């Protein structure tokens, strides 16, 4: 354990992302929707405190893989997952694991901002309340404020915390959803195309935020935009037809990909 941490510190100093300690690790993950297989033997590590981007054409299984990491596939009746996925070397599909606890540690932000039809305050307080994180009312206020601050939203909404979250702009709603995810102090945050419903300015703000969050959280982001992957991620994984094609440091993936399919996808020949 010590050795791992030391190694992480060293590589952080050198700025070589590939040898970061793996926070989550997928081994030979297969996913079936009914009789249809959506992922084939995907093995992928997610490094601690860095941003891993999942790219690839539509329907290649990026979201499916992402949803395996917090067991959101459990909510789909026909979905079946085989293989092994670990969080801090613990198998998250082990029956002893409580999904409630797992999802508190692995948070998620969706493609379309989905704030609850409640006040801004209540949206952020939702997680802390159900997990009993705040014993006193003051604690909850504190959690809500710091979460909104970390999500870069506090200054914009501090005067209207008790107005509905659904009244915010799309970009603000998405940052509210990020604040909501942060509020339970997760270790990993999964983001499924978090900017695809946002305009360019809101997108830039969210990207900035992702870069800041990397310091404290491990982030996995699905994105459709090559530029976004290049801007925010340290490592990139390329999916195609349910297979992991190639995975490596983002710089290398974009300048010197090994696989022909990655090359074609990045240069826009398909997708």
């Amino acid at each position: 354990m010590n050795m791992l941490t030391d190694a992480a510190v060293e590589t952080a100093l050198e700025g070589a992302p590939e040898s970061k300690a793996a926070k989550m690790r997928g081994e030979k993950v297969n996913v079936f929707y009914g009789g249809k297989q959506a992922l084939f033997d995907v093995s992928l590590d997610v490094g601690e405190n860095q941003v891993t981007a999942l790219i690839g054409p539509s329907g290649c299984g990026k979201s499916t893989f992402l949803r395996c990491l917090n067991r959101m596939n459990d909510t789909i009746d026909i979905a079946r997952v085989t293989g092994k996925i670990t969080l801090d070397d613990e198998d998250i599909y082990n029956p002893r694991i409580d999904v409630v606890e797992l999802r508190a540690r692995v948070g998620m932000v969706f493609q379309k901002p989905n704030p609850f039809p409640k006040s801004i305050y209540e949206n952020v307080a939702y997680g802390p309340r159900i997990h009993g994180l705040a014993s006193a009312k003051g604690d909850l206020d504190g959690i809500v404020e710091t979460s909104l601050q970390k999500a870069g939203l506090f200054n914009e909404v501090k005067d209207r915390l008790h107005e509905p979250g659904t009244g915010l702009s799309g970009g603000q709603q998405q940052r509210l959803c990020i604040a909501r995810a942060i509020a339970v102090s997760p270790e990993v945050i999964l983001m499924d195309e978090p900017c695809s419903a946002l305009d360019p300015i809101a997108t830039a703000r969210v990207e900035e935020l992702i870069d800041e969050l990397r310091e404290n959280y491990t982030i996995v982001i699905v994105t459709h935009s090559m530029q976004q992957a290049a801007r925010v991620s340290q490592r990139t994984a390329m999916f195609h037809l349910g297979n992991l094609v190639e995975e490596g440091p983002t710089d290398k993936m974009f300048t010197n990909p090994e696989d022909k399919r990655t090359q074609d996808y990045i240069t826009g020949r398909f997708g």
Partner: protein
Amino acid sequence: MTGYLFLAILVLSLIAFYTGRRTASQFVAAHRNDVHSRPIYHGAFAAVWVGLPALVLVLLWLLFQGSIIDRLLLASLPASLTEGASASRLSLYLSEIKNVASGRIFSEPSPEVSAAAERYQRWQMIAQWAMVVVALAVAALALYITRARMTARFRARQGFERTLDIVMILSAVAAVLVTIGIIISLTYEAIQFFRLVPPHEFFFGLNWEPQIAIREDQVAGTGAFGAVPVFTGTLLIATIALLVAVPIGLFSAIYLVEFANDRFRGIVKPILEILAGVPTVVYGFFAVLTVAPAIRQAGGLLGISISPNSALAAGGVMGIMIIPFISSLSDDALRAVPQSMRDGSFAMGATRAETITRVLLPAALPGIVGGILLAASRAIGETMIVVMAAGLTATLTANPLEGVTTVTVQIVTLLIGDTAFDNPKTLSAFALGLVLFVVTLCLNVLALRIVRRYREKYE
């Protein structure tokens, strides 16, 4: 006679359709691309214009013929009979004349009446034949005009569609007019009532004994028209009904939307909805023959005496009847909450129960409240179950084990048997009816507004 006339108009209009279509087909053959509307529209246009005006004319004729002949009859009576006679006297003459005309003779009619009866018969005959002739003439004229107007460039499609628009508008207006008519007649009789009994006595009085004598020889109460016990009785029964229906309806909706698999839902949902289709008189039997005795027996075991027509039995059975309203509207409301809300909540680590109580129910609340209000309005207006299972005496009580009466029960009993429209007993039924109408209307409008507003939110 009238039946044949309708048939004749129908036949004419069919003829118009077929000939119109055939003529138009000939245009198509002759001009090819220069024909504006397809032949079927030419046919439809002709049929509508041949049929509709004649039909409307006949209906109006039938509506007014009776009263016009009555007027003429009265005018033709010798002045010695009608001079200074009251309206009811005159209407007695009229019915006597009509009775004689149709051969129902109770006593030897006076010569004036016999003569009038003869006139009546003659005029009836003339009016009827005039109607037939005029209607057929109108139809024939319309047939001629539409045929004359028919050319290749004639815009039959627009004409036909505009006519259809008008027909639809008229149907909508008719529904509204009927509603307005109901309100007016209710209000009129209610005002008559409030002339006899002051409104404050009706709305705030605590004593309800409306069964007063209508004829001199009847034995009856002295009359008291304080409707408060009737209102509270209605409220008590409706409250019991909602206490039964809201939890059952809501929980079944939650189960069906959030837990049940498709197969189970496919079986159970239609069964639940059948409950709404059971005739209320059957619920009435159920309340009287099964539920009320069971409650009484249970009370007997516990040493409590329970009235045979307790509010509990009537309200409980009414609750079963309104379950489908609540469950199906709650079902819609829950289903309308987007999946992304559930995903968002599950992804935060919420359990199913937390997701339902903290996200889904609050989000669906307006729809659920709308459903409850609609159900409440049904419960307040429901008649058959309470007529069979609730009491007749108006008791001011909140005890569900006692018998209470409701607004609808009172309306029914007040209008059964002797009625006279200058008597507060009969008229009070209309005052009660007006209150019932206003309350349920307000509940319905409110409920529909809430439901509609909420629908817009996620679209």
